[in-house]
């Protein structure tokens, strides 16, 4: 197999040689970094590996999921293990999908100046600012639709000059919308029936009574993705 050509990258300011064609996450691991937090599914779904980087010669920061974006010559990398954004506490069953509910729990959305910095930071290409604006006018349906692809990586909130916690606002909107406006899907109703009828009770019982070593063995031998 032909060896990829090596390129020079910078991780937290220090230069490394890594093979071209690696993702940001792979390149950092190649250089010797170990991800204890800030890494998850490695498939672009979980949102744990949100990162900030800068291309050679550019002054603007760019944003991506480290498991998805490829490194290039002269790129500057860093790691963002977590976004410490607070989430409002609420009991969904007690909430109505009223026009003001998002403002009540997240009053800071009223500080949005439409700078669009959140949208520029979104690795999922979501119109983040537009859904915050929809949240401001109580349009829960539009927040739900615009934010549907959100993986809660937190980059929007990291960048916001108004300290808005966008992804938590959107999550509350989606929960309210699901509760009040969208019908419960048939497969969910079916599955709840199955659970109540005890379909998984034996398996669950088996797992909860298993000793730790057996459990570890089972976990290590689990099938992660179906093999083709």
């Amino acid at each position: 197999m032909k060896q990829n050509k090596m390129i020079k990258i910078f991780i937290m300011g220090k230069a490394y040689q890594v093979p071209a064609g690696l993702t940001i996450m792979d390149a950092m691991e190649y250089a010797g970094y170990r991800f204890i937090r800030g890494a998850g599914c490695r498939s672009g779904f979980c949102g744990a590996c949100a990162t900030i980087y800068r291309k050679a010669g550019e002054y603007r920061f760019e944003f991506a999921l480290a498991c998805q974006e490829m490194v290039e010559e002269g790129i500057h990398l860093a790691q963002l293990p977590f976004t410490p954004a607070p989430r409002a506490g609420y009991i969904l069953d007690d909430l109505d999908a009223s026009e003001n509910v998002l403002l009540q729990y997240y009053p800071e959305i009223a500080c949005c100046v439409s700078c669009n910095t959140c949208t520029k930071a979104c690795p999922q290409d979501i119109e983040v600012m537009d859904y915050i604006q929809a949240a401001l006018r109580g349009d829960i349906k539009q927040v739900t639709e615009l934010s549907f692809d959100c993986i809660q990586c937190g980059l929007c909130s990291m960048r916001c000059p108004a300290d808005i916690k966008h992804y938590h606002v959107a999550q509350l909107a989606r929960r309210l919308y699901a509760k009040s406006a969208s019908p419960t899907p048939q497969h969910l109703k079916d599955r709840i029936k199955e659970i109540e009828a005890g379909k998984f009770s034996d398996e669950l019982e088996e797992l909860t009574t298993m000793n730790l070593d057996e459990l570890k063995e089972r976990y290590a031998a689990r099938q992660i993705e179906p093999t083709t």
Partner: protein
Amino acid sequence: MKGIAYFPGCSLKETAKDFEISAIAVMDALGIPLIELKRWNCCGTVFSLTSDDLMHHIASVRNLIRAQEMESPEVVVLCSMCFNTLKRVSLRVNRDEESLTKINAFMNKELDYAGEVEVKHLLEILRDRIGWEQVSEKVIHPLDGVSIAAYYGCTLVRPHEVGIDDTETPTVLQEMIESLGATAVSFPFQTECCGSYQIVDRRDLVINRSYRILSSAQRAGAQVLITACPLCQYNLDEAQTELAERLPDYTSIPVLYFTQAIALALGVEAGTIPDLLAESLVGQEIPKKEETTR
């Protein structure tokens, strides 16, 4: 484009739905439909007076870009507060090239704003493009015998450079009222501020100011009061609820959006009309409207 690009603003989608419902119906009837901007955000709410505070103009400029994207030379606004903010920002960036350049550079990944969109209030379109005579011709339920007070508030006529009429003695709303067959009531407090955002933490101030406005209008003979501002409407109605409790002799009057009065006269969807108005229009055939989703 048949029709005119239209910026609703947040209140019209929330607390002032009747304003939008009636305006859309009226403009459809008058042959210039309102075409809502495909994307829009908050206008910025208030025009920032700090000379180097460009950040708070971005919201307005972004909306002007949305109109530009629709290749519209103008954007029409109903809420007088949004109108005021959008228009002042448009004038601000037009005469200060440096700040426009700065704002455009900040808003990368967006079309540059070319500074060519004109901000219009719906009353200007009615007065200058359609004309009150033509509005009169479309009236099927003349509001004969109804005395309507024209309440302007602040942001429709001030400051002078954005005002749609004379700052001290405007007449545009009276002309509109007369065109519907009603009697226009002028009163001393018609351009006084209702107290605006003070409702949040200085409630009594707003109640007192609203009382002055409402009682002055009533003394002048008004049975109905009209406004172009969702915040004025909210404050005046909120005050009336409290005044009715505090003052046994106080009689409330309906506070409507001006577009609701036109809609009633044209016999089109007018939104929710208070029973009080139905009473004051005894003998009139009022088109019964379906309950709106308010």
